[in-house]
Structures are given as structure tokens and as C-alpha cells.
């Protein structure tokens, strides 16, 4: 039986179910307990699980990220919330030097089954220090996994998988999606990592993206359908591991590929996917892979400027027209 719930509820359900299932799981972060979560994701969890398992921290990312990693080394399974992934930069040494490398540096002795989660991407006039899209920065590092849910269903399914995964997972949510409603079954389910999903089948052009920009992609696909261009929109779901095979299958069918990545273009996830597609589909491409990113500038405050900066529907339409020689 499917119910309609919000993305934030789906995240909470995932965490709560995993915490009921496994006493080693706990949630820690700024304002997660008594404040009910800065964005109300963890509302009610303090009441159910108590202050030993839903823990407020001071504003101290290095300390609580590192604490989570130390606890994970001992076999606990922490969920560490960054109020915004922008703040994770403060804890960069811990999350990049310790979490993804602990298993390797200890020669297989101490793993790090931790989940770092929080809002990623532009939140709406939050200014350049609070609008970070960290996927391109962090995806470069081997040893971590990275997931970006599109809707409530995936939010729940992917987060459960993340918590059960024995490797460190960076879970990138979006403040702008927290209120989006979707069908989420009551029954137990998970969404596996490394399995992309075709959100809109099509034959004319492959469009690959993750997270919030997919909504722009789908909007663009509707507009382009009127023009006779039939887009196939693929939700990558996880960046590490990346389901390249799904993208290749699609490009072999359509011969055109657009990658939409909300982070900045230089040395980005979009650039990586484009390179991989060029290599795997060289003989199937009628044009080079076109990328759509946020503009290569710090995020501005002013509403109109920020809207222009994002990988918006207009840019995606232009990209698809251009790549299919319909510009």
C-alpha cells in the first residue's frame, strides 16, 4: 500500500527504522534532538530514541565528524548530520583523510561504517558560503560512497542502504526537496547503490543527472517533446558507485548525451561522466557529450542572478537542442 509522504519524512523513517533494527545506529548533529532538526528531518526522534541515541552537538564539525569516525572504528554505525554540506568543509580533514582511508591505512583492521548526511546545493538565496555542491569536490576520493536521492522513495531506500553499508557514505540531500511529496510504501524496502533508474524513457537524447536538477531535466523533457525531441532522463542515484552501464545502454540507443550536474564545471562529476561516456560510447555518439552545470562563479544572493546561475530548465533545453543539432 503506497502512502504519500514528504521527502523529510522519508529520511526520518529510514533513520528510525534502521535505529530500531540495529542498536548500534545513532544520530548526531547540530539541533537534531531538542530542536527537532534544523529542517525538521529528525522531528520526534528524540522522543522515541532518547538522548543517548539522538544527540545534539555544539557547532563543532571537526569534533563530531571525528567522533563519528572513531565510534565507527569501534563498530558503531553513526549517522552524522551536517546542517549543510557547506559546513562539512570545516571537517574536511576528518571526513576525507580519516573516514575513507581508515580501512586501507589499518590494513583491513578497522572499517568505517558511517553515514554523513545533510543538505547539498543551492538552498535559495543563501549566499555563496552556504550554497555548496560538494559532490564534485568529494567524489574524487576513493574509499567513500556517495548517494543523491531524487524523491521521497529514493530518500528512504537509499538512506537505509547507506546505513547498512560497511563503507563510509556521503549522503547528499537538498533543502529544496525536503517538502516534496511522493509515494513511499509502508513495507520494508531498500534501494541498492550502483543502479541508475530511467525516470523518463525516450529515444531521442539521453539526459543524465542526480538529485534536484532532475526536476529541471524532466521539465525540459516535456518542453522538448513538443519540439519532437524525445528525451530519456536517467537518474544516476549514486555517484560512487556509478552505474555507467545504464547510461551506456541509453546512449547506444539515442546517440546523444547531456549530463546535468549542479556543481561547478571544472573537474566535476559532469566532466567525469562525459569522459566515461566518450570512452564507452565513442562509436555510438553523433555529437560530443554536452554538460550543463551551475555557472563557474560563486553563488550570488540576488534571486534572479541565482536562478540564472543554476543548471535550470532553459539551459538544459538549450543543451539538448544543441547536442541533437536542433539548435
Amino acid at each position, binding site marked *: 500500500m503506497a502512502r504519500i509522504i514528504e521527502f523529510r519524512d522519508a529520511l526520518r523513517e529510514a533513520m528510525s527504522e534502521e535505529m530500531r533494527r540495529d542498536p548500534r545506529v545513532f544520530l548526531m548533529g547540530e539541533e537534531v534532538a531538542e530542536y527537532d532538526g534544523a529542517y525538521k528531518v529528525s522531528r520526534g526522534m528524540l522522543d522515541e530514541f532518547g538522548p543517548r541515541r539522538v544527540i545534539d552537538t555544539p557547532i563543532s564539525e571537526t569534533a563530531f565528524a571525528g567522533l563519528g569516525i572513531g565510534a565507527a572504528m569501534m563498530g558503531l554505525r553513526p549517522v552524522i548530520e551536517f546542517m549543510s554540506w557547506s559546513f562539512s568543509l570545516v571537517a574536511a580533514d576528518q571526513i576525507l583523510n580519516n573516514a575513507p582511508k581508515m580501512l586501507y591505512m589499518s590494513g583491513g583492521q578497522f572499517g568505517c561504517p558511517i553515514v554523513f548526511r545533510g543538505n547539498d546545493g543551492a538552498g535559495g538565496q543563501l549566499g555563496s558560503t552556504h550554497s555548496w555542491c560538494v559532490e564534485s569536490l568529494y567524489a574524487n576520493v576513493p574509499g567513500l560512497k556517495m548517494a543523491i536521492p531524487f524523491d521521497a522513495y529514493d530518500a528512504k531506500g537509499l538512506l537505509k542502504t547507506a546505513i547498512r553499508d560497511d563503507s563510509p557514505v556521503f549522503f547528499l540531500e537538498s533543502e529544496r526537496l525536503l517538502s516534496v511529496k511522493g509515494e513511499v510504501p509502508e513495507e520494508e524496502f531498500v534501494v541498492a547503490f550502483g543502479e541508475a533508474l530511467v525516470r523518463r524513457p525516450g529515444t531521442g537524447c539521453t539526459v543524465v543527472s542526480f538529485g534536484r536538477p532532475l526536476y529541471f531535466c524532466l521539465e525540459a523533457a516535456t518542453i522538448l517533446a513538443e519540439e519532437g525531441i524525445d528525451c530519456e532522463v536517467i537518474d544516476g542515484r549514486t555517484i560512487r558507485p556509478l552505474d555507467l552501464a545504464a547510461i551506456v545502454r541509453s546512449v547506444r540507443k539515442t*546517440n546523444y548525451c547531456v549530463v546535468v550536474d549542479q556543481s561547478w564545471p571544472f573537474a566535476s562529476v559532469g566532466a567525469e561522466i562525459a569522459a566515461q561516456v566518450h570512452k564507452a560510447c*565513442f*562509436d*555510438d*555518439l*553523433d*555529437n*560530443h557529450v554536452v554538460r550543463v552545470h551551475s555557472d563557474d562563479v560563486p553563488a550570488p544572493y540576488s534571486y534572479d542572478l541565482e536562478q540564472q546561475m543554476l543548471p535550470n530548465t532553459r539551459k538544459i533545453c538549450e543543451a539538448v537542442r544543441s547536442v541533437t*543539432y536542433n539548435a
Partner: protein
Amino acid sequence: MSIEITMPRLSDTMETGSILKWNVGEGDSVSAGDAVADIETDKATMEMQVYDDGTIARILVPEGQTVEVGTPIAVLAEKDEDPQEIAAASAPPLEPAPAAQEAPAAAPAVPAPDPTASAPTPATAAPVPAAGAERLRISPVARRLADEHGIDVSLLQGSGPGGRIIKRDVMGALEAGRETAAALVPSAAAVAVPTTPVELSPAAAVPPAGVRLEPGLVPLSNARQTIARRLVESKTTIPHYQVTVTFNVDPLLDLRRVLNEQLAAQGVKLSLNDFLIRGCALAIHQHPEFNASWAGESIEIHGEVNIGIAVALPPERGGGLVVATIRQADRRGLREISAEAKHLAEKARTRGLTIDEMAGSTFTISNLGMFGVDHFTAIINPPNSAILAVGTAQELAVVRDGQIVIGHEMSATLSLDHRIIDGATAAQFLVSLRQLVESPATLLV
């Protein structure tokens, strides 16, 4: 046992060192931890310590000398050994350099960086130059499609940036049929779908007296080239053999007449070939080897039953033949098959067929009945395992129930790939087909 003291690595980038000063001499006793020399490295001057107790038996490298890290510089005799003996046994000391040897600059310890930054790739896709020809701009998939369909790209006009030939240019060429790709080609003899007859020199015309043939060379069209290549390949690599059967087609002719009368108002006009298409499709279900391909290490049985029908093309379309594919003929009724066959034949002769319309047949039928041919054999259309060559329905004196009567008979000859289908199997197929054809009501269900 004596201990060799070597030039130590005193910094992680040190490759050579020179001995600025020895603090001990031969015969001096030392304890572990004593600083016995000052060594100049690439970074600083450092003390060198010994790690064992003993007596300096021999100094091998004098002051002022630069040597590589790891080079023996002295020998240490342990407590119970005689330093003199050890000295005698060890290598002679290095000659001091004639002039003050400049310590060579320490070789850079960092290996030459990998040229990770390659030249920036151009913004547009690099064009693929045609072999030996002038530079051609063409996208990879357009190149591949052109190769697959034997299209000469040098004749194409590219509509992409900078004149790049792109997929739609190749597809357009295919559709317009300027160069008929003729990817799939049937038997050598010309064939027509029995609808409107094609003027393809039926009866031999008698040339007017006194006129000679025009000698000369006819350049090969793409179609002709492809036909030649594929048929030679088919005939020379597949072990062909033939099995013939004759059908009593009176029941079929009757049924056809009845149906066509009743359905004339709906525009339906069934041909004998339509019935044969369906018949073969159904018979194939009982004989899956007829829906197979030779795969080298195995025989691949196909899931879909796609019947190919040979269509002859008029000279203005380049001549030659194409095979149009009626997909899933086993799941379609006669009406549908008939309409499809007509449509494809018409299209082949006018606008040309698309790749999809020509691809994927698993069994082919070639019909010369229109021309009054009694019987002929066809060449297998690879990668099929068989082809059926159908002649005309002839009015003959036949034996029915022990009596000689007038009836209609039609000859059909299977050409088969002996690697996949043996004679007995072929015979059984024909028995099945005959049952269907001679009780044609079974073709309706």
C-alpha cells in the same frame, strides 16, 4: 663478524653525501650512539652515529670525498675481532680526489611528473579522416552506420557544424535510396511479390534484325556490389542442398476466392504468397531449426519468426533486390500480413525501405510464380538456415482419389543449410507445410 659502515641516508631526499670530518681514526674504539663523522647532505650537515660497539678497523672514504648513499665508508671490528686482520681483508680506501670535488647537486628525488595534463581536447569532436582521402568530418555513429550500409560518405553533404556528416545525413541517404544499401539480399534469380507485375524483362524479346548489342562496361551500383558479395559468400560457405515438394493448391485457391469476394469491399486482396508466409511461419513453430542461424560453436534459435519476402526493384531505383521483413508473422493474421507485404513492396519500389524494414528476417520466401516459372532453386539469405522458392500454380492433369482430374499444383523448393538442417528434418517441415497449405482453413487460426 666485522660490520660495514655505509654512507647513511640522512634525509629522505639524500642521494649522495660527503664526509666533512671524521671524528675517529683507524684503531679508535667506539660505542653505539657515538657520532663518528660529520656528513654534508643535500639539506644540512648532520652527524653520523654508529649503532654498535667496536673498533674502527679501516676508514675507506677520506674527508672531502662525495659518495653515493649506501657506499661503504668504514669497517668496524666487533669486540672479539682483531682490527688489523679486518683492515687487511677489507677493500683499499678510495683515492682522495685530486682537486676539491664539488659535491654533485643531489639528483632530484621527485620523479619526473607524469604528463597527466594532456593537450586540451578541442571543443568539437575531432573529425575522423577518411583513409587516404582528404579530411572528412563525420561523427562516429554516422561513420559506423555508413559502413554498415555500404554508403559512400564522400558523396554526402554534412549538415553538422563545419560540414560534419551526422547521423541524420546518413539516414536521409538511406531513406532517399540514392545509394540503395541492400544490406540483405535474396536468391540470384529476380523475384517479385505477386501484386502488380514488374517489368523486368519477362519473356525474352526478339531483338530487331540488324541491330547489334551495345558492348561496354556497366559500373557496379552499391546494390549490385552488395548482392555479388553476399551471394558469393552464401553459396561458397553454406553447404546448400534442395528438397522439393508439390502442393495441391485447389483448396487454397478456393478459399482465397471466397475470402477475397467477401472482403473486397474492405479493400482486402489476399495473394497466394500471403498464405504461404503464414503457412511457413506456423510450420516453423514445429520445426525451430528453420528459424535458426549458424553461430560457429552453436546453433542459435531465434525467438521471433520474421519472414523475409524478396522484392525486385525497378531500374530507376537501382535495380537489384531487397528483402522486406514481415515481423512476427506467426502472431499476425492473413489480413495483416497481406497489408504489410503490399505496403513494404510498394515502399521498396518507391521511397526505399529503412534498415529496420530490411533487417531481422529469420526465414525467406522467394516467389517467381508471377512469371510462370514452374520451379527453381534459391540461394540462402544469410544468416537464415533455409529459403523457400515458390513457382506458379499450374493447371494440370492430376490424380485425385484414384481418378485423373484437372487440378492446380504448385511446386516449392527448399534450399537448406546442411550444417543446421538434415534431409529428414527438411522433409518433415515440408510435410507440415503441405498439411497447412492443403487444409488452408488451418491458416486462418
